[in-house]
């Protein structure tokens, strides 16, 4: 188990491994939004919590692509499936590695990008908190999507398509919490729901992912 985690982290940090790229994408999406909707700062600050959550979600989504596909292509998954490690555990570890290399940096970067979009001052804490609670769910759900589409060559876009609807509940509660926080309203309910989703998903999803992967390996 440890071996897999360290290997995944090592690969992520090696040249071309993609660490920090999710972050960069997050940054770029946030930067592009004003070019799209115009430089009006009052408008920007109103949409800021939503856009930041969306940006984090997209950045997460894009990096899912390399979660399993690389290991599939070079035959590692075949070999892992015949190894003593249960596939459920292997996939949970891969999701954890994904969160460490992608989700966590996004959480840490969000406040800085909040400045770019004129996020109202009370919003920062809630934004970070909601992302911290929500991003693990994104990684775990994403692993499921990756397992479903791993056989499809360049399944990246197809995977996005499958995963995005699954991300909707997380996005709704997460963005709701951030938005309410930014306007000084009560956030308890949304945060609780968010935490519930994350906990449930971590407990159950690995089984679905492993089942999907087994079918694909066949």
């Amino acid at each position: 188990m440890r071996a897999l985690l360290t290997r995944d982290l090592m690969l992520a940090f090696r040249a071309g491994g993609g660490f920090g790229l999710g972050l960069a994408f997050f940054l770029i999406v946030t930067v592009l939004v004003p070019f799209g909707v115009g430089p009006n700062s009052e408008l920007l600050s109103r949409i800021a919590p939503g856009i930041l959550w969306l940006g984090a979600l997209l950045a997460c989504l894009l990096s899912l692509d390399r979660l399993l596909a690389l290991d599939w292509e070079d035959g590692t998954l075949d070999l892992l499936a015949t190894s003593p490690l249960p596939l459920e555990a292997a996939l949970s570890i891969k999701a954890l590695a994904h969160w460490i290399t992608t989700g966590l940096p996004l959480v840490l970067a969000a406040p800085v990008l909040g400045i770019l979009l004129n996020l109202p001052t009370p919003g920062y804490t809630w934004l970070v908190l909601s992302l911290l609670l929500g991003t693990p769910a994104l990684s775990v759900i994403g692993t499921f999507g990756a397992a479903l589409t791993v056989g499809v060559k360049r399944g990246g876009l197809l995977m996005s398509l499958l995963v995005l609807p699954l991300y909707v509940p997380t996005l709704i509660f997460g963005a709701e919490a951030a938005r309410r926080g930014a306007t000084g309203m009560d956030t308890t309910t949304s945060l609780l729901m968010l935490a519930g989703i994350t906990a449930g998903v971590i407990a159950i999803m690995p089984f679905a992912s492993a089942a999907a992967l087994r079918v694909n390996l066949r």
Partner: protein
Amino acid sequence: MTLTIRDLCVARGGVPILEGLSFSLAPGQALILRGPNGAGKTTLLRTLAGLQPPLSGQIDGAEEQIAYSGHSDGLKSMLSVTENLTFWADVFGQRDIAPAIAAFSLEGLKDRLAGTLSAGQKRRLGLARMLVTGRPIWVMDEPTVSLDVDAVAQFAKAVQGHLHAGGAALIATHIDLHLEADMLDVTPYRAALDLRAGASDEAFL
């Protein structure tokens, strides 16, 4: 632990490929699978390794016993030779990678990234992986692709060593490995066209 196959039928893409296969593989024994291109060797080996379910028939003694090596080697081009081997050793709960390195004379390439190896060198690394699994039954699909004559000899030696240590090996290949081993030609087991039982298309026929 003997691997026993009884009346096995395997399929690919929903089409039965081989049927009526029965054989067994005892410790110390090697079995060479032969058959022309497209005969179904790869399909059979993947089924035995547990990567796909058989259509019908029984496989006994395979659980957690098989180390599989397929057409691709599962190497990470951004990890060095040592790192690649260490990773697989860890996954299979083994420690020592030195014998594997020595068996395929990878000493000089130890610190090179796997991505910079030549085709044959990559293959040697892929084969060295079998040695760090600690599994008794080796199931290998065309292991000698891209290998030069010396490397093929090294490989034969490694297999021999594995057999002497009580292991078993099932190898699909088109070339002569100079191994003392039984031969199994899969051609006669080719599934008859009208075979229906169990194919996933069967319900529609």
